[in-house]
């Protein structure tokens, strides 16, 4: 990859180290617990997916009822001393967007503890979708993206900060892009 050419070898080694730690499946240490945000029907929400475990929290990005669009971006900030972004990978497609063939836009990047992600159709020709799920951990439809979080190595019991990073946008079927706010619940290690 062209840009990795510019990253010093030491930084790359550290990066690989982080990746290695993040991928751990150890059952020891505190486990993650997530409480969904208080319902606000006007905002996007980050809610717990039913596939979550104590050591691999899966969060679903869902939209307000009636929202339509063909792509989203989002960002979240995480207390990396307590938790880390999943690596298998951190961002995957939900069940709303059609990613098409070739290059697919379901991807996440992490820098300074912040995850930037995108899940989107390519172009505006895909069908516009409506996210109309109920805000619960049992959501099975209207999931825009899935995000994975795991306990950090050396994590201790207590709270872990997880907040909206402010880069959320929604692409509508006409090409219009508007900012969105994502309500985030509380993350605990217990």
């Amino acid at each position, binding site marked *: *990859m*062209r*840009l*990795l050419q*510019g*990253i010093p070898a030491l930084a790359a080694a550290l*990066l690989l180290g*982080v*990746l290695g730690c993040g991928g751990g499946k150890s059952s020891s240490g505190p486990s993650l617990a997530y409480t969904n945000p208080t319902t606000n029907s006007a905002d996007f929400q980050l809610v717990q997916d039913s596939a979550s475990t104590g050591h691999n929290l899966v969060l679903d990005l869902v939209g307000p009822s009636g929202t339509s669009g063909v*792509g*989203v*971006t989002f*960002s979240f900030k995480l207390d990396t001393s307590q938790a880390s972004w999943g*690596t298998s*990978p*951190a961002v995957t497609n939900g069940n709303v967007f059609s990613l098409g063939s*070739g*290059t697919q*836009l379901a*991807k*996440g*990047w*992490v*820098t300074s503890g912040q995850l*930037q*992600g*995108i899940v*989107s*159709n*390519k*172009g*505006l*020709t895909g069908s516009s979708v409506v996210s109309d799920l109920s805000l619960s951990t049992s959501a099975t439809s209207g999931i825009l993206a899935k995000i994975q979080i795991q306990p950090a190595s050396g994590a201790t019991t207590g709270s872990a900060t997880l907040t909206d990073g402010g*880069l959320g*946008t929604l*692409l509508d079927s006409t*090409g219009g*892009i508007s900012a969105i706010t994502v309500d985030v619940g509380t993350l605990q290690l217990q």
Partner: protein
Amino acid sequence: MSSGWSKNCVFFLALGTFGAVPALAAVRDGVPAVDDSLRISVARSVPPRIAGLTASGRVDATLSLENMMLVLKMGTQNRARLDQLLRDQQDPTSASYHQWLTPESFGASFGPSAAQVAAASTWLASHGLTVRGVAKSGLAITFSGSAGQVEEAFQTTLKTYQVDGVTHHANASSVTIPLGLSGFVQGVASLHDFRHQPHHTLPRPVTGAALSHPMADLGRYGNGLGAMDLATIYDLPAAYTGAGVTIGLVERTDIDTADFTTFQELQDPSRYTGSLTVSHNGADPGVVAADEMEAELDTQWAAAAAPGATLLMAVSASSYTTDGVDLSAQYLVENNLAQVISVSYGSAESGMGSDNSFYDQLWAQAAAQGISVFVATGDEGATQGGGVAAVNGLASPPYATAVGGTMFHEGGITSYWGVANGTGTYPATATGYIPEWVWNESGVGASGGGVSILYAKPSWQFGDGLAAGGMRELPDVALDAAADHDPYLAVMNGTLYGVGGTSVAAPIMAGIAALAVQKLRVSLGNAGPALYTLARSNSSAFHDITSGNNTYGGVSRFAGIGYDMCTGLGSPEATILVNAIAGGSSVVTVTLAAPTSTQTIPSGTQVAFRGSATDSNGTGLTYTWDYGDGTRVTGATAGATYYHTYTNTTGANVTNLATLTASDGSYAGGKSVSILVQPNPMSVTITLPVTNVGVLPGIPITFTATVAPASNKSVTSSTWNFGDGSTASGLSATHTFSENASSVYTVTFSATDSGGNAASASLQVVADLASVMDANSEGAVDVRGLLRIAASWSKTKVASDTNLDGVTIASDLNADGKVDDTDLNLWMEDFVPVVE
């Protein structure tokens, strides 16, 4: 009957007053014996519209005819004295300067004698006709009677004619009057119902998204002009609104005044502090559909120019024989109801017969009373629609100011207009003055203008572009009148329309005059002398329109430097014009050191400009160079040399009027010089792939150019200079900017042909990773830029980018003309740091 008219001439004369004006002893002509059997024909009293037509019948002799006007005339000596007074009223050194008459004092000073009026009235009555009133001036007697009585009195026959499927009636033969009356009776204002024509174009409803916003992008019809656009383009002085000034509007229909309010609400309601009053002169005609838009335009656009003025809409019903326009015009003047009058109707002066004298005398009376009259010249170019050269007889009298039409000529420069539909609550979409040329839209209309066949050139009509002597030339000034590009917006019956025509220009000019009256605190009277004097002393008060023609029906007039019979002195630079006319005590005199005379140069030539100015008050001056091609230098320094390169790719000569303007904040002066730019016989354009956009460093970019060599010549060299030290040859060249580049490069393509002609074209590219990846132009590189590229995926760049809203240009990272997976991959590869 007009409420303000005297019913008894003797009583009127007893009440006549000279007021504050110098005593003016009337010359009372005698009244010879009236022998009804000795008759004289009134010249041109048969309406030209019936020429060649066969009458379809005779008007019923019992038909009641109302509001006919017997037009009387001033004695020769009285007219000479009046003309002298009118000159004195405009002469600051005269005791009569701006000393205005009342209608009564005008009549006492210049009108026909009581004996003459009585003789004419008696004669009318002798034929059974009923005298309804006598004008305060004594210059018109209103009467009524049956068709049979009229035929008997004027020894003519009234017949019916079919014209364009409409039944008209008119006198079939010349009107005659007793020889004994001919010394002071001009004739009848009209005995037909061929009406003056409104001078606006066919209204086009504004529909769709544009309706929600007055500063509309009308697609192929350009930009809809709102009130704030008008203020911006013609630089209306914000300090004046016309408050305390009444603008009289000559109409013959009612309107729904809610439209007036709606129009203002679509603009900026806070601007409008004036009012609109509808005054009926006699019977209420109701809403006359054919005239409704005219009245809407007059009210809405007079107020747009003078939002604090009092608008008085004089409405008179047309009768079988008399045009409501004539009645409303007389109503306003006879009752001295306004300081400024706007008229948007007209007829060819050659077809108006006695109506010409009626308007000549009425506008002279208006001028004597201090009223400034502005009349639209018409929308049929150098004709009035008859296929022969003609001017509007309502505008041609020297005591009216004739208003013609221009249209905007952006010349491909897009910066004259802001974002479509603007931003903010009530924006001006226009960003400043827009160069103009003569209004001439094929199949739509063209600026009325030409030479009067009746009136000698007035003493004040001289200056650049005007030959000495001869007949009066029209128009005097002009403003935008285009209907296709770009129409004025107007509301009628709740619907927004796009409309053009000189009938919009006239009320706007009337509104600008109202601003000057407000500043001056006294009426201006005939505006002509002040306008021509100003044009000679301060050319920056007008935008001289130097190109175009008003060809219509095979008759043409052409624009040129200085005055021309398409746009007159040009369009107003309203702030300078108002400040200068309304009593500026400071005189700013601009002198050009270079160039000092008209320059003729080939395209691509650089011209040096230098000039300075003096201010009679010694106030500091600010300077602006306007090179006439859309380029301006503000904050220029006096005496400094400025260089500007003119290019011309039109294929024909282009004259640019370069102007140095100096302003002391209140008053300004200007001096212009013409730069005639000859076309370059060879043209060069860079067609693809990018235009003023970012390109990704490290990615090969292919540039392509097209060359059109001069006729019968071939291209001998083609060279690229990429601005980073690299060059290439050929019409197409591929170049990769440095991987670490973060710079703006000017890419230039140059070519020469076998005739020795050379041409070049340039574009700028930004070879900068961050700016390219910030595809959504938010000033930061983040994942939102990738979403913008996703939105453009599968799109192909088109020249105008009309289908992509600018998206593809920013999203096409490798500038290959399309947005695809390559662009997505480039972005994702270059987004730092990447940790998955």
